[in-house]
């Protein structure tokens, strides 16, 4: 079974530029999560999708961050415009949502550096 795929793996941009990250979850997983992990800290949930609907985006800075999950499969996370403090690893995770344990399966992440 293929794992969660993310691209790109690394991105360097200048502040005020735009950037987009892509995630392909494990096949059949209904729930998809985007996390931001700043160096030295644990992951912080940005947005959670159930199929193609948003379940929780309470910690998403909506003035600059946006995310979508078309057709309930792939997802993209966009930052426009980027700030220096957006430098972090952006992790995508998915879970099957079978009603039992909610183990999350993580992708390798995209490391973003904003100069």
């Amino acid at each position, binding site marked *: 079974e293929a794992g969660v795929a993310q691209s790109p793996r690394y991105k360097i941009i200048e502040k005020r530029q735009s950037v987009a990250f892509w995630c392909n979850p494990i096949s059949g997983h209904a*729930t998809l999560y985007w996390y931001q992990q700043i160096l030295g*800290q644990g992951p912080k*949930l940005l947005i959670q999708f159930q199929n193609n609907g948003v*379940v929780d985006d309470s910690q998403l800075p909506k003035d600059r961050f946006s995310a979508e999950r078309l057709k309930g499969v792939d997802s993209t996370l966009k930052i426009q415009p980027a700030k220096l403090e957006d430098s972090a690893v952006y992790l995508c*995770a998915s879970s099957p949502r079978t009603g039992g*344990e909610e183990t*999350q399966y993580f992708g390798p*992440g995209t490391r973003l550096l904003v100069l």
Partner: protein
Amino acid sequence: SQQGEEDPQALSIQEGENATMNCSYKTSINNLQWYRQNSGRGLVHLILIRSNEREKHSGRLRVTLDTSKKSSSLLITASRAADTASYFCATSEGGSNYKLTFGKGTLLTVNP
């Protein structure tokens, strides 16, 4: 905001020794999970313990949960150099969205 707080922040041991990491949290939970993160990689799920369980084992891992003290511990026995990683506890409050809230993690270094 982060729910779990791991202790210690960093731990360095010799191969073969046991490693114990602790996690404290603030609110009632449905379950608590431990994840491992190798440098530059994504997180890998290790073990989940439900709020009505007190102890759980998986291979060299032993997790305990004390809901009265709102704390959990992760014990790795007979550590190996490959166990070098950051370890995070994550809590789920249940409800309809199964949201996980992660702590800041413990960086474990196992020296050969």
